């Protein structure tokens, strides 16, 4: 579940990671500016169409976006307790009053949540971890931070594996961690966490020596075997994203479509 990159070739996979990162960030910012339901919904539908291009299987997509859907539903359900302005009244249950404008407003927030989520998922589904870090470094993230992110992402699955092995070893020496209530269960994790962290710390020690051995920091400017290259399509994509964003903001300010 950690490696959600979809290993297929698609048009979005070929896009320069920088374009996709800028796109995801812009979409997030845009979402907070827009409060017009029609725009948000239109954008949401557009994003779902883009999602088709990621070639992600619908089962995996639904599983990944489930948390966002849950939050969106909570917002829609809670909303009528508080925002009861406007007519007509659709439902009136004592303190729980659903009005049409209020309902549409809650839908707008729900759409906003789903939009932000789908924007980042498109990035994550179509960009490998190393491309992602490369892109961020090219966009101005410090190289050393980028390197530690790469290291972190590489070790995440390994530490999950270490924890499994420790669990198995404890089980084979008769320790049953599944017993007990939530507090006991949390406490049962401590004998697993301590060796995991201790091993991680020894790894950090060795890793720092490996970095020294590989000449990390030897030269102020390092070279790259493969440079990221913006192609025409990348430029075009970037231009379209930017213009679409601007257009929506402008429309929102002018208030052409009212809802």
């Amino acid at each position: 579940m950690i490696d959600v990159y979809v290993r297929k070739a698609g048009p979005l996979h070929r896009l320069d990671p920088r374009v996709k990162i800028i796109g995801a960030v812009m979409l997030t910012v845009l979402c907070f500016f827009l409060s017009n339901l029609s725009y948000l919904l239109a954008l949401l539908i557009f994003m779902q169409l883009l999602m088709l291009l990621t070639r992600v299987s619908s089962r995996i997509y639904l599983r990944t976006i489930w948390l966002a859907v849950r939050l969106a539903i909570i917002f829609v359900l809670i909303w009528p307790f508080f925002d009861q302005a406007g007519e007509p009244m659709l439902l009136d249950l004592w303190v729980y009053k659903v009005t049409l404008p209020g309902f549409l407003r809650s839908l707008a927030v729900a759409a906003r949540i789903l939009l932000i989520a789908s924007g980042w998922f498109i990035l994550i589904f179509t960009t490998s971890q190393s491309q992602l870090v490369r892109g961020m470094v090219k966009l101005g993230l410090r190289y050393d931070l980028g390197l530690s992110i790469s290291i972190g992402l590489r070790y995440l699955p390994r530490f999950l594996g270490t924890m499994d092995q420790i669990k198995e070893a404890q089980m084979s020496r008769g320790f049953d961690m599944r017993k007990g209530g939530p507090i006991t269960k949390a406490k049962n994790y401590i004998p697993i966490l301590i060796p995991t962290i201790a091993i991680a710390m020894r790894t950090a020690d060795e890793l720092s020596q490996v970095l020294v051995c590989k000449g990390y920091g030897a030269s102020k400017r390092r070279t790259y075997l493969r440079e990221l290259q913006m192609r025409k399509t990348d430029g075009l994509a970037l231009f379209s994203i930017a213009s679409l964003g601007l257009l929506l903001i402008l429309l929102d300010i002018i208030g052409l479509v009212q809802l």
Partner: protein
Amino acid sequence: MSVSDLTYVYEDGTLALEDISFEISKGERIGLIGENGSGKTTLCKHLNGILRPSKGRVLIEGRDIAEMSISEVVGKVGLLFQNPDNQLFCSTVTEEMSFGLRNLGLTEDEIATRSQRYARLLRIDGLAERPPLMLSLGLRRLVTIASVLAMEQDIVLLDEPTAWLDRFQSRTATDAIKGFASSGRTIVVVSHNMKLIADLTERAVVLSRGRKIADGSTREILADKELLRRAGLSPTPVSELASDLGIAGHERVITEDDLITALCRGRDGGVVRP
């Protein structure tokens, strides 16, 4: 203990073990051999109930291991994992050795005497209060061996017991394991070191790519160089020497003793092609 038609498929769909069947009688000393990735470790995890077969069964004394609780299985089968670090959980060697004994429900007195006995046996009795993770790799390994043997189960699975040990440590460990097995307990030694297998076991099961390709007396299997080659294993150094030199009866040379017998049996049976 018996294993029948055991098949195991990983979550990602790779086939790890395929249709493996064999039986282990009480008191047997069995070697489980094969190259890295042949499925030895995965098979061990089935024998101790950590993994559940995708197909087939593992029975202990006639009972299906899948239906036994952790404490029931652990009462009968012990497992030494290959990597010493993922099986050290405590802050001192003494606690480490008591960990399993406590889960067996022994009294504090029994725990103390038994862990002291095994610490002496593995020559780690001077390290009682040291944190295990701070010890050298070889000593960490000895601590894990002591911790597993101290539980004194009827069947003990040992995954590469002498890896990372130097000569002294390795002698200590093999002596302890031999002593342990001589009291009627069953041991299964997993290794790609044929010298160790020849020393410790009488029967060998050969795995290759998740399948059982041979099962027989250790001597016969280690003498079958073609079989070893197919399994990606190297014969013992003296066995190679004997066949390099074309010593008469070289097919049967596995240990140093065999070499000496082969050479001394007849003067004309000596070196033919130096």
